[in-house]
């Protein structure tokens, strides 16, 4: 079977959904052919196929973009809105948090808001402080939104399809450093259900709970540690919120140890919620405290050695695992 990159996977999923449902349309800055098919080429080729009403290149107006997506969703369509970089969600937070997330609830279920907000970010690209943040915790903290991020191309295809199907708002976070990752193409119609984690690697000594690009680090560390006789299980959440609690707790009950890992800064991050919940629910199985790894609590720096020092690295992960299993 052919391999596809994550970029292709996302493009295929959107293309397929647009072909299947005339209510699916995209809007965002630079998304149409005239502007080059999206900064990261995710919508490349689609405006030629579906026209400029269904691939709407917008002004630089994040509030208007998300507001339009919300309104169109209330009228029964399934918009996919692109916020070019995740840091810019600050500009349209009102539309996401006060409107998209709450209109189902506040209307007593009458006006669900099925929108997908695609956005991209990632540390390690040299974009500096205002273009690199992982802000998933902001959204995970708001009831009424799904927060999704793929760690490989096949999942990207399946999660995007499921996100477009979902009858609620989805924040779909794409890590720039993952766009080039290749997987075997799972083929048309492939869906990865929201809210289902993947056991990316089985192990018995410790569970790493992570998502997005850091899944790659976790898998790489797990492979290295295998040689030293430490067996690491890697859980890829895929959906960060609401997350697959059953899979996480089952894994921790099995291994007795847990480490949460994410690129977002550590304080008040999703790792804190995961750790607290694991502690409460798996206390009897735990052989030690749940450990947390996240980014440094500062803005993402520009100089590449600083940026590399900022981001959790494999050495940190190895050190924490060894400390946890008592082999440091």
């Amino acid at each position, binding site marked *: 079977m052919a391999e596809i990159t994550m970029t292709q996977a996302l493009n295929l999923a959107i293309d397929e959904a647009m072909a299947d449902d005339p209510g699916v349309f995209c809007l965002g800055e630079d998304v149409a052919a005239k502007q080059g098919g999206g900064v990261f080429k995710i919508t490349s080729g689609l405006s030629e196929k579906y026209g400029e009403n269904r691939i709407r290149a917008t002004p630089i107006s994040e*509030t208007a973009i998300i*507001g339009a997506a919300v*309104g169109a969703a*209330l009228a029964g369509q399934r918009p996919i809105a692109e916020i070019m970089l995740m840091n810019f969600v600050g500009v349209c937070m009102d539309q996401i948090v006060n409107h998209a997330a709450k209109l189902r609830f506040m209307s*007593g279920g009458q006006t669900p808001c099925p929108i997908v907000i695609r956005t991209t970010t990632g540390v390690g690209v040299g974009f500096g402080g205002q273009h690199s943040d992982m802000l998933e915790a902001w959204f995970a903290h708001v*009831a009424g939104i799904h927060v999704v991020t793929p760690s490989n191309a096949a999942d990207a295809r399946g999660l995007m399809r499921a996100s477009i199907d979902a009858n609620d708002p989805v924040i779909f976070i794409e890590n720039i450093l993952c766009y080039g990752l290749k997987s075997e193409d799972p083929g048309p119609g492939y869906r990865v259900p929201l809210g289902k984690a993947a056991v990316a690697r089985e192990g018995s000594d410790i569970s790493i709970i992570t998502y997005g690009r850091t899944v790659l680090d976790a898998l790489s560390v797990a492979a290295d540690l295998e040689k030293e006789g430490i067996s690491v299980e890697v859980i890829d959440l895929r959906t960060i919120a609401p997350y697959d609690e059953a899979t996480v707790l089952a894994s921790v009950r099995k291994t007795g140890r847990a480490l949460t890992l994410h690129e977002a800064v550590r304080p008040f991050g999703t790792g804190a919620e995961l750790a607290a919940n694991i502690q409460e629910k798996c206390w009897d199985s735990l052989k030690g405290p749940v450990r947390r790894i996240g980014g440094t609590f500062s803005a993402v720096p520009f100089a590449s050695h600083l940026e590399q020092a900022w981001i959790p690295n494999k050495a940190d992960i190895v050190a924490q695992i060894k400390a946890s299993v008592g082999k440091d």
Partner: protein
Amino acid sequence: MAANAKEIDRDKLLDIYTRTMKVNRTDEKFRALLMQGKVAVMYYCVRGQELVSAAAMAALEKDDYVVCTYRGQGEQTAKGIPIEKWWGECLGKATGTCKGKGGTMHITDPETGIMVTTGVVGSGLPIANGLAMASQNNGDGRVTLVSFGDGAANIGGFHEAMNMAQLYKLPVVFLCQNNRYGEHTAYADHTDSPNIASRAAGYGMPGVTVDGNNVHEVYPAVKEAVDRARRGEGPSLVEAMCYRMMGHFFGSDFSYMPPEHLAEMAAEDPLPKLRKVMLEHQFTEEELDSIVDGINAEIDAAVEHALAAPLPDVSEIYKDVLEEVN
């Protein structure tokens, strides 16, 4: 009648009168209930602005969409939300439009076309664009009207939405109810341009300021904007000059509103003016009174019903957060 006034036919006048009085009687009733201590909820008075909402709603078709604000009682009742459901929601009852989970500031009733009532100033305009975009995408011929205050015109979303609507020629009508105040801040203390409508020119869109107390100005202006939108010619901004004759919300202090100005504005009260127009059109006092009596009776019954209605079950807090998928 203004010399350049466009004539409105008798049926339409009667329609506007009925809607206006529905808004006014609802407002009076709400204030009475609050004063009597029978209910204790936030209520944003629409006294002085009744005609604007009523005439605007009369310019729409039944299935057109509306987005309004916490001060949306006028749009909601004039567009035709079943009033028992409206009162139920305002009193937080299970029988309300939103099962008591929205409340006075968040009334939604898609069947009536009331798609969003927002408590966040200025945030309705971008959403109205989206409703209009959906209509444009699927060719359903609907128009979306969004109502907001003068204060909202200074929010970023206002400007983003105006530009986007004009760019795509969306079938949307922006209705600014310039009631001269944004909470405690008078118009001149928040905006230095003479009016809001002139901003439309900056986006390439028609903009007009009308006397919101004159039915012969409000209705034709909104109707023209609605027709234009329906013809596919794009959005318009209509600014209706009116006056919030009470504090920001009912019971709030309004000492910052100069009494002389209040007195002056009382002379502009849209209700006696509308009544005069009706009489000029050979409606009789008796006919007009009997319409109001009918509305009062309907409202009284709806309020009794709402007061007696059950509260939502506590389990409702867990429902409608996300779609329940089993």
